[in-house]
């Protein structure tokens, strides 16, 4: 049995090609031997010159045969290369390898120069150069998603170009997803192998579908990194006070994931100006929460930054910086239709960002109720015991509604109702305690199908929220003056919660998104695309689905989302830009000590083996090199007149 097999043209075809080409070479050689005939006047002169050459005429003939043989050998080498010969063992058992390159945040650690990711890329490059002739490899970047960097290929150039595109992200790696991708890719292929190039902090190889099973796929692990000194910001949040939106509070958490104590300086800046600077000492492994209440000054951006005392730095700078945005404040216009209610006025005075207009029922009818359009310029209309004949074309709060103009039917009067059932998750009752509110009398409300009963006594609903014709409303089934609600903190909170709910100025506002998640950012208007400005300044188009821009964020920092106007739209329809922040905030990624072993599906990943740099098992390359060398030799000997 031959020690090699042909992966290219079959042997019979090669023989035919060699036969034809060989014949042509011999024919050309013979033609070449037919010399040009030249007349000379006196041959004895030439005989004298060529006397020395005659002595070696036999050798000359031999050299000519040698020259022909050399050409036939060259031809044989080239034809054999066409057959793509490969060693039997290799051609049968070429490996199929999926290399998962960890590009999560911890790979930005600089404990190995220049960074873990750069070292990982070098390792993969060495693997690519050590591929066997029959081996094929697929590279994939593993972070919050798994991104294949090219097709399964044995072409080193293509693989190296793919490898060059690997870039670090501020996310954690979705190991289970990457493994599922790899096992799916390798299904049915010969000698499947997964190589994980990582620092080992990949979490459990399980997802909502359960643990990943590798089957007969070989798993190899290339460990990258050696250091573990790191202090990171693992929590960072900010919110405005509901009753005083000019003030806010910040909560953050620092974690020392290293095994030595660390002295750090924590700097908090608002709108670029320092807000607070604290020196802290974190013991090894300590998680230190910090709370900053009652802050003021900043109106938009907040950043937390840690630096090491003495100008040093830890091994992972990526988690030393966190970003947050304070919720946007905007002035809400409120129209109060009342005959006079001190409690209502007092509650509305608490929020300086409310622009309150007061009108009597008669004035409302005269000025604002015409077709309901007059009230449209207000964000909220509060009807205090005065229910309009037609609902306004804006959001409305109905206090003790009556008559046909009420958004909900007002039924029988209730004696001493109470808030026996409360939908505590509803925004309008957030932070309130309504359980012990005393009410002298009220009316049972009958909500429609889509309405939400927020509060109800045992006798029936008394607080209903819903929407009519696209405008929200909240109906309270009693006169606040017939209860002690007005004497409680819950009253202004209820009012402000309701106004905020109307304006989507939700107290559940997230001060930052987490990198690696799919973000869904609300977008005004029915656009299909929005323009997102990344922290790096790069603009990218993101799709808008069901009124929300969808984007998988992978980098920490401040983002700006602007609605892309439709073709033909006026520029002003582009709408205001929405800003938001994104952070890593992941203890798992901040823990950078590399793991020595990797276990998946109960299988311990083995060390990398079988990649030998500089050894290609593609024989045709060597055949071509041999042909080139022979050609060079022939060229040199021809020009030095050795073979002629």
């Amino acid at each position: 049995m031959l020690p090699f097999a042909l992966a290219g043209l079959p042997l019979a075809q090669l023989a035919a090609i060699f036969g034809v080409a060989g014949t042509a070479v011999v024919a050309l050689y013979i033609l070449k031997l037919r010399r040009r005939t030249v007349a000379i006047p006196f041959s004895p002169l030439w005989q004298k010159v060529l006397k020395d050459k005659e002595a070696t005429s036999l050798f000359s003939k031999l050299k000519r045969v040698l020259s022909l043989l050399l050409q036939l050998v060259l031809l044989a080498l080239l034809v054999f290369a066409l057959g793509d010969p490969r060693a039997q063992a290799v051609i049968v058992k070429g490996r199929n390898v999926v290399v998962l390159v960890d590009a999560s945040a911890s790979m930005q650690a600089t404990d190995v120069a220049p960074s873990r990711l750069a070292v990982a890329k070098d390792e993969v490059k060495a693997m690519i150069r050590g591929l066997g002739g029959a081996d094929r490899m697929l590279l994939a970047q593993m972070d919050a998603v798994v991104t294949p960097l090219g097709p399964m290929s044995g072409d080193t150039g293509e693989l190296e170009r793919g490898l060059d595109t690997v870039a670090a992200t501020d996310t954690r790696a979705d190991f289970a997803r990457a493994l599922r991708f790899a096992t799916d890719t390798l299904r049915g292929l010969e000698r499947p192998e997964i190589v994980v190039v990582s620092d080992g902090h990949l979490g459990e190889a399980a997802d909502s579908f359960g643990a990943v099973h590798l089957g007969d796929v070989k798993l190899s692990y290339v460990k990258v990194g050696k250091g573990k000194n790191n202090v990171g910001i693992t929590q960072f949040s900010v919110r405005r006070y509901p009753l005083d939106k000019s003030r806010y509070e910040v909560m953050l958490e620092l974690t020392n994931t290293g095994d030595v104590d660390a002295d750090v300086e924590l700097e908090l800046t608002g709108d670029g100006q320092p807000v607070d600077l604290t020196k802290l000492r974190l013991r090894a492994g300590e998680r230190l929460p910090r709370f900053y209440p009652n802050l003021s000054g900043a109106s938009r951006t907040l950043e937390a930054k840690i630096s090491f005392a003495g100008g040093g730095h830890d091994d992972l700078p990526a988690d030393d910086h966190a970003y947050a945005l304070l919720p946007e404040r905007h002035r809400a216009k409120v129209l109060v239709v009342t005959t006079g209610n001190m409690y209502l006025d007092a509650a509305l005075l608490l929020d300086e960002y409310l622009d309150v207009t007061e009108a009597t029922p008669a004035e409302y009818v005269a000025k604002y109720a015409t077709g309901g359009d007059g009230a449209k310029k207000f964000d909220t209309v509060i009807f205090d015991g005065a229910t309009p004949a037609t609902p306004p074309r804006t959001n409305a709060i109905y206090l003790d509604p009556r008559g046909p103009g009420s958004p909900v039917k007002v039924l029988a009067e209730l004696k001493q109702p109470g808030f026996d059932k409360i939908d505590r998750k509803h925004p309008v009752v957030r932070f309130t305690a309504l359980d012990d509110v005393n009410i002298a009398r009220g009316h049972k409300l009958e909500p429609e199908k889509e309405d939400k009963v927020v509060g109800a006594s045992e006798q029936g609903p008394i607080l209903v929220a819903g929407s009519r014709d696209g405008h929200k409303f909240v109906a309270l089934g009693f006169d606040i003056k017939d209860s002690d609600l007005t004497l409680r903190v819950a009253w202004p909170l209820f009012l402000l919660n309701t106004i905020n709910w109307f304006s989507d100025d939700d107290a559940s506002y997230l001060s930052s998104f987490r990198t690696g998640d799919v973000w869904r950012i609300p977008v005004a208007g029915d656009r299909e695309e929005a323009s997102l400005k990344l922290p790096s300044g790069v603009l990218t188009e993101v799709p808008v689905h069901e009124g929300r821009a969808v984007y998988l964020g992978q980098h920490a920092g401040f983002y700006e989302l602007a609605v892309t106007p439709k073709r033909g739209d006026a520029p002003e329809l582009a709408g205001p830009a929405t800003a938001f922040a994104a952070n890593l905030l992941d203890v798992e990624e901040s823990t950078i000590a590399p793991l020595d072993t990797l276990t998946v599906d109960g299988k311990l990943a083995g060390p990398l083996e079988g990649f030998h740099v500089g050894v290609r098992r593609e024989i045709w390359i060597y055949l071509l090199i041999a042909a080139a060398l022979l050609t060079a030799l022939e060229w040199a000997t021809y020009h030095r007149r050795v073979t002629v």
Partner: protein
Amino acid sequence: MGLLESLGLSRGSSRVASTKDDELFGDDFQRKLDYLALVSKRVFAGRMRAERRTKKSGSGVEFADHRDYQPGDDFRYLDWNVYQRFERLLLRLYEEEEDLAIYIIVDASASMGFAGGEKLRYAKRLAAALAYVGLANLDRVSIVATNDRVMERMPTTRGKARIFKVFRFLSSLEPSGVTNLGDALKTFVAQNKRRGLAVLLSDLYDPEGFEKGINVLRYNKFEPFVVHIVDPAEGKPKLQGDVLLYDCETGDEREVTVTAKVLEKFSAAHDEYTQSVARFCATRQVSHIEASIEIPFDELILRVFRRGGFLR
């Protein structure tokens, strides 16, 4: 007007002038011949006269020398004036007037016709020029064409008027055959009993050796004058690569791969060959001149005259 024309012997008056060699012996050529004839007279009348004086006393009118009287001498040639003054009997010697036999031997072998026959054409012109000068001096001029034998022969003639006979003869020569000067000149000496100047115009490409032919002349008391016709281009052939060389005379073939080195060697061998001709002639006191076809023929003729030995 040329000398020939003044004698009524211009080419236009000749019915037998070869149309084939119009260019070879054209008007320009004839004018040059006139010029050469004049120049040659001046040369002989000038500094070369002493060299040309014959040692033989004879019945001519031109005084040559005195010598002591010896018994048996003719009294008529005693110089009585000298006897009266010096009381010595001296005999007056006179130059014998004798017409010279000039044989012009033109090699018309195939090698002379090589590369367009430039060498043969050059030899013909030289032959015509020398013949004209000879005829002008009332010498007896004969022309012989050879290869490996005597191909053709123009009988001995005398007088300028015979120049067109010379032209016709030379024009009719075509290169052919193998060079064998030895055999050819043996025939020549056998046919020509009267000794004289034998001017050999040849490229001397003789496979049997050029020496043989010259020696035949020498051994038979002819005074050889070798004009070696050389084409410098033959020493530097424009050849490259694999070629099959064949000898235009013998037809011998030979495969050669011509390289710069081989060309260099050949050029050296060619130079050595021409030098060996010169060396041979010098050592045997044979008048020799190397006639490169790149030199205009009239310039060469003057060089021949200046070398002397051509005319007595």
